[in-house]
C-alpha cells in the first residue's frame, strides 16, 4: 500500500509558540503523508493544531511561533531547509497553495477579484497583463462562476460568501499546484453552498490532478469527500488510515469518542461527550496527551509517549492498546 512514494511526507513536525505565558507546544511530533491525487481529511477539535499544521507546511508561521524541528518532504526536498525566498518563488502558490476559512476577508478589499487572480498568475508565470486577465477569467469559468467576465471586474465585498470562496479556489489553483491545503473552506458558508464548494473541490482535483489536504472539524464532510483521514489530538496525529477504516474499524479511543459524539437521527438518550477538556498545551499531559481523558488509560500511558503502530496496511494508530 504505502510503498508508493508520497507527494508530501511530514515526519516528527514540531511547532511551538513562544507566548508570554509560556511555550505553547502546538505541534508535538506530527506525522502525515499525502499521496498523489489524494484527498486527505485532517480532523480534530478546535485548537488541536490542524491549521498550524497547514500553515507549517507553507512555512507561514510568524513569530512568536516557530517550527522547531522535523521534516516536511515535498517532491523529494525538505521544505524546512529551503530559504524564505525559495519558498515564495518556488513553492507557495506554485506547487502548494492554500484556501482559508473566511473567503471574503482572504481577498484584498481594494482590488478587483480579477486583478487579484491575475496577480497570483503573474507571480509565477511570465505572462503579460492581458494574458493573465484572460487566464483569470477562464479559471473563474472553470470554478462554475456565472458570468466570469463581470465577476472579474468586481470587488470582494460585492460577492457572496460562496462566490468569494470560488474566487479564492480559482486563485489557489491558478498556477496548477500539486497540493491544495483547504483550511475549513466551508465553515463560514451555508449548507447548500457548502455542498457545492466541496463538489467543486472534488471536481477540480480530478481536472487539475491536485492533491488536497482538507482541514475540517466536520466528520460528515470527511466521510463524504476524503480518501484518507488523519485524526489529530493536542498536536499529534493519533490515527491515520483509509476513510473506511477510520469510520468502520477505528482503533484509537479518541477516534471512537469523536465518532460517538456525532449526533444521529435514531438516537436514544443524551449525546455522547468525551469527558474532560482539551488540555492546555503549555503544560500538556505527560506520555500520551489523551490519557487523562481516555477511558482505557493504563499506567504506561502517563509515562511514555506511544509511537505509531501500523495495525493494518495503511492504517496506523498511536496508542499502547496496539503493539506491533
Amino acid at each position, binding site marked *: 500500500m504505502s510503498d508508493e512514494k508520497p507527494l508530501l511526507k511530514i515526519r516528527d513536525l514540531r511547532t511551538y509558540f513562544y507566548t508570554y505565558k509560556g511555550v505553547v507546544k502546538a505541534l508535538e511530533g506530527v506525522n502525515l503523508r499525502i499521496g498523489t491525487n489524494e484527498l486527505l481529511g485532517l480532523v480534530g477539535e478546535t485548537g488541536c493544531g490542524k491549521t498550524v499544521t497547514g500553515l507549517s507546511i*507553507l512555512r507561514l508561521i510568524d513569530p512568536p511561533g516557530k517550527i522547531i524541528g522535523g521534516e516536511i518532504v515535498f517532491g523529494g526536498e525538505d521544505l524546512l531547509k529551503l530559504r524564505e525566498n525559495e519558498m515564495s518563488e518556488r513553492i507557495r502558490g506554485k506547487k502548494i497553495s492554500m484556501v*482559508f476559512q473566511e473567503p471574503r*476577508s*482572504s481577498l*484584498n478589499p481594494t482590488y*478587483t477579484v480579477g486583478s487579484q487572480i491575475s496577480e497570483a498568475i503573474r*507571480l*509565477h508565470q511570465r505572462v503579460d497583463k492581458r494574458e493573465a486577465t484572460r487566464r483569470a477569467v477562464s479559471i473563474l469559468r472553470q470554478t462554475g462562476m456565472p458570468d466570469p467576465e463581470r465577476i472579474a471586474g468586481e470587488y470582494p465585498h460585492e460577492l457572496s460568501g460562496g462566490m468569494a470562496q470560488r474566487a479564492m479556489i480559482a486563485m489557489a489553483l491558478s498556477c496548477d499546484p500539486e497540493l491544495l491545503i483547504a483550511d475549513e473552506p466551508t465553515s463560514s458558508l451555508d449548507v447548500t453552498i457548502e455542498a457545492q464548494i466541496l463538489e467543486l473541490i472534488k471536481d477540480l482535483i480530478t481536472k487539475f490532478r491536485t492533491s488536497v489536504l482538507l482541514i475540517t472539524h466536520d466528520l460528515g464532510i470527511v466521510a463524504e469527500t476524503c480518501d484518507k483521514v488523519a485524526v489529530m489530538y493536542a498536536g499529534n496525529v493519533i490515527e491515520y488510515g483509509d476513510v473506511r477504516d477510520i469510520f468502520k474499524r477505528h482503533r484509537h479511543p479518541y477516534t471512537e469518542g469523536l465518532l460517538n459524539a456525532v449526533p444521529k437521527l435514531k438516537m436514544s438518550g443524551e449525546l455522547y461527550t468525551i469527558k474532560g477538556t482539551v488540555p492546555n498545551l503549555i503544560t500538556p499531559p505527560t506520555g500520551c496527551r489523551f490519557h487523562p481523558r481516555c477511558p482505557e488509560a493504563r499506567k504506561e500511558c502517563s509515562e511514555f509517549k506511544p509511537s505509531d503502530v501500523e495495525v493494518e496496511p495503511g492504517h496506523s494508530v498511536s496508542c499502547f492498546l496496539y503493539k506491533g
Partner: protein
Amino acid sequence: MGVGAGKSFLQWLDRWKTEHEAMLDDFKYSLHLLRRSPLSMVGLILISTFLFIAVFAPFLTKYDPIEQDLSNRLQPPCSENPFGRDQLGRDIMSRVIYGSRISLRIGITVIAIAATTGTVLGVVAGYLGGRIDEIVMRITDMFLAFPSLILAMAISAALGRSLENTVVAIGMVAWPRYARLARGQTLSVKEEQFIEAVRSLGASRKRIIFSHVLPQCLPPIIVQATLNMGGIILTAAGLGFIGFGAQPPIPEWGIMISDGRNFIMREWWVSTFPGLAMLFAVLGFNLLGDGLRDVLDPRLR
C-alpha cells in the same frame, strides 16, 4: 487622423469608466459627503482660491513683488495699491500674491519629502517588526522629543539660511509623524487574513509591503498631510519671521510680517495683510483636513 485619435481616446475613457466603476462611485460618494459638511466646503473654497492665486500670480497683479519705489514708501492702502506699500515702497498686494507661491512650494515639497519617507519607513518598520522596527521607532522618538520649531531652526541654521534649506529642515522635522501613523496602520493591516492569503500565494515581502499594505495606509496619511500643510506653512513663516528661513527680498509671508514689526502701530498694513493671507490659508487646510478625515474614515460613514 485627429478625429480618429479623439474617438479612440473616448473609447478608452469609456472602457476605463466601466472598469473603474466601483472606484468612481466611491469617489462620488466621498464628494457627496464632503459637500454635506459646510465647514469643509469653506475649507475647500479657501484652498481653491489659494491655489488659484498661486498659479495665476503674474496675471493678478501688475507690480513686481521685489521692485522698490522709495519715493512711495509706507504708502497706505489706496485704489492703486489696495494693500499699501512697505518700507521699501514695494506693493504689498503683489508680495502677498507671490508669497502664496512660496508657501505652496514649501508646503508641497515638504509634504512630498516627509510623507513619502515617513510612510515608507513606517510601513517597512511595522511590517518587518523586530530590530528594524525598534531602530526606526526610536529615531522617531528622538525627533519627536524636540519641539519641532526649535529643531527646524537648528537644522536650518546649521545648513545655512535659504528657502531650500527651510524645506529640508521642516521636512526632517515632519517625517516622524507619518512614520508613526503608517506603522500603526500597518500593524493592523498586517494581521488581516488577505495578507496571509497573498503570502500563501508566494508574494514576496516587497510586493506585500508595497502593493498590499501601503495602499491600505494611505487614507489617514492623506488626512494627516492636509492637516499638516497648515502647520508647515506656519513653521516656514515662523522661520522666515525670526530670520532663519527664506531670505529677503523673497516675498515670503513670515519675512513680510517681520518687516512690519517696526511700523505696526502707525503703518498697520505692512504686517496685517500677509498675516491675514496666512490665516486664511492655514484655516483652509485645517478645515479641509477635518472634512477629509470624516469622509475617509469608514467608521464615520
